[in-house]
């Protein structure tokens, strides 16, 4: 039983290492895009439109003669950057609301949770369309709409975990020790709820990338001529018969990044045990592994 557990641990650690390398590569590309891209991603050159791969354009050019590779590299900035922005903002708001609701309880909890349920009942696409209708299309509107919808899920997760933690004796002991509410939240609650949520959040980034791409594909998100993977698929769809690679390349990028994030999320969940959220690091202690296995 223990041996099996260790093997799973080792395997997931290898997987985690592999996907971290892939992800590291993507992040590097995102940061270094202006230096490593061979061409300006928005420079139109109709004389060179729809060219096949060549030394000058390794992945060819699109219908306006723009270098596909450069656009893909810059596109990573938008996809990864804004997905991370959505994740961090939603996480921050969720952490604040969820912790307050869970810790305070009573009427505060009821009011906040009813509000969350109201937000959850609201379809995100309608919210995006509404914001786009008011402010016009743009990535900021998409990001705002997605944060407005997603924080609720984090808030609910945080609340649930805080409710569980609150009953633990070390919180009572901290109260008896004279620690203020703020100190208890800062020292005892947040360090215990954050890691498992970050693990789950890794899965969420994959979804956020897909959502941004989907919105851009629908023409609601990023606007031409900026390169974003979803927007690139959108622009390439007119040439699907003659030049399917215009849709294929950004599609593959989305696939690769999302799969990488998902595998990383799974591996981390395995490693840190999202179910045994508070038992971080304990798996490696033989005795505890035995205790867990014996349960």
């Amino acid at each position: 039983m223990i041996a099996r557990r260790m093997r799973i641990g080792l395997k997931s650690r290898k997987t985690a290492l592999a996907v971290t390398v892939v992800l590291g590569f993507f992040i590097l590309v995102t940061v270094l895009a202006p230096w490593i891209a061979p061409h300006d991603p928005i420079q139109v050159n109709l004389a060179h439109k729809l060219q096949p791969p060549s030394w000058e354009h390794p992945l060819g050019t699109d219908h306006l003669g723009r270098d596909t590779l450069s656009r893909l590299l810059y596109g990573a900035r938008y996809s990864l950057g804004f997905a991370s922005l959505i994740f961090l903002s939603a996480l921050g708001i969720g952490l604040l609301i969820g912790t307050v609701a869970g810790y305070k309880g009573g009427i505060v909890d009821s009011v906040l949770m009813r509000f969350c349920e109201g937000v959850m009942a609201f379809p995100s696409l309608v919210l995006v369309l509404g914001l786009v209708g008011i402010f016009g299309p743009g990535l900021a509107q998409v990001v705002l709409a997605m944060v407005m919808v997603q924080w609720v899920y984090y808030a609910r997760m945080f609340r649930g975990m805080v409710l569980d933690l609150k009953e633990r004796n070390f919180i009572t002991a901290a109260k008896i020790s004279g620690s203020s509410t703020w100190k208890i939240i800062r020292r005892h609650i947040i360090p215990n709820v954050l890691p498992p949520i970050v693990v789950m959040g890794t899965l969420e980034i994959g979804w956020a990338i897909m959502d941004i791409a989907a919105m851009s594909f629908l023409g609601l998100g990023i606007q031409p001529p900026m390169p974003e993977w979803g927007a690139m698929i959108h622009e390439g769809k007119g040439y699907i018969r003659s030049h399917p690679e215009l849709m294929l390349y950004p599609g593959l990028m989305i696939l690769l990044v999302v799969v990488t994030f998902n595998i990383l999320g799974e591996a981390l969940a395995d490693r840190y045990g999202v179910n045994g959220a508070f038992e971080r690091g304990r798996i490696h202690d033989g005795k505890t592994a035995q205790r867990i296995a014996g349960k």
Partner: protein
Amino acid sequence: MSLLEVIGVTHTYAGSRLFRRAGRQTPVLTGVSLSIEQGMGLGLLGASGAGKSTLGRVILGLERPRQGQVLFQGQDLYRADASTRRQLRRDLQAVFQDYTSSVNPRMTAGQIVGEPLENYERLSARELHRTVGELLERVGLKAEDARKYPHQFSGGQLQRISIARAIALKPKLIVLDEAVSSLDMVNQTNILALLGDLKSIFGLSYLFITHDVKAAYSISDALAVMEKGALIERCGDKDQLFSSPHPVVNKLISSVLSEHPRYRSLASSSNPS
């Protein structure tokens, strides 16, 4: 003046406001009164659900009772202003049954034991480190253990850390809520001995909540028994318990198994006194 005086405490746990029906609440505590003198160990016995732990929480200032008063050092814990309350709390500490959940898994033993000191005393990092080391040694651990995390300790050691945290501020009263019940026999004996030592060194008072008659007898000066939220027996001298006429008390005493199987049937029928 007694160190702690509990006067006519009655308490009920409120259910959901929406579904609460009048007359359906079962009281957890009904008119409980008791007192603890300075330096005295009071063993509070009773079966599960008798309201012992709730009384402990009420005394610790964690659960405001519906009726009655809790006077600690002559002041009402629930009516004192914030700063008085804070000062009173300082002298009132606790150790719980579940040692794993009593310590934050993400803090080192040093941080755990140092937390009450941080809250009440202005110590430099160096003094704090030294004091924490002394406290750990006092409870039978090593000063170097301050750097370790809870998962690196055994159950008995974790309970020692909890005790170190409870005595850090040199309190006057410690509520021990089933503090040794989840430990094995050897650890129980060791921890009870440690608690006995600390009591005589610091002049501590204990409220020792347990269902274990033997453990309570070994550490306490006086005993009290609870049943269904009420205090049914109070003995100023712990040996008086054995001559109590109350059937619940007799049942409790007879539940103690004798060391030797031959005497077990005798223990349940006759009074050992």
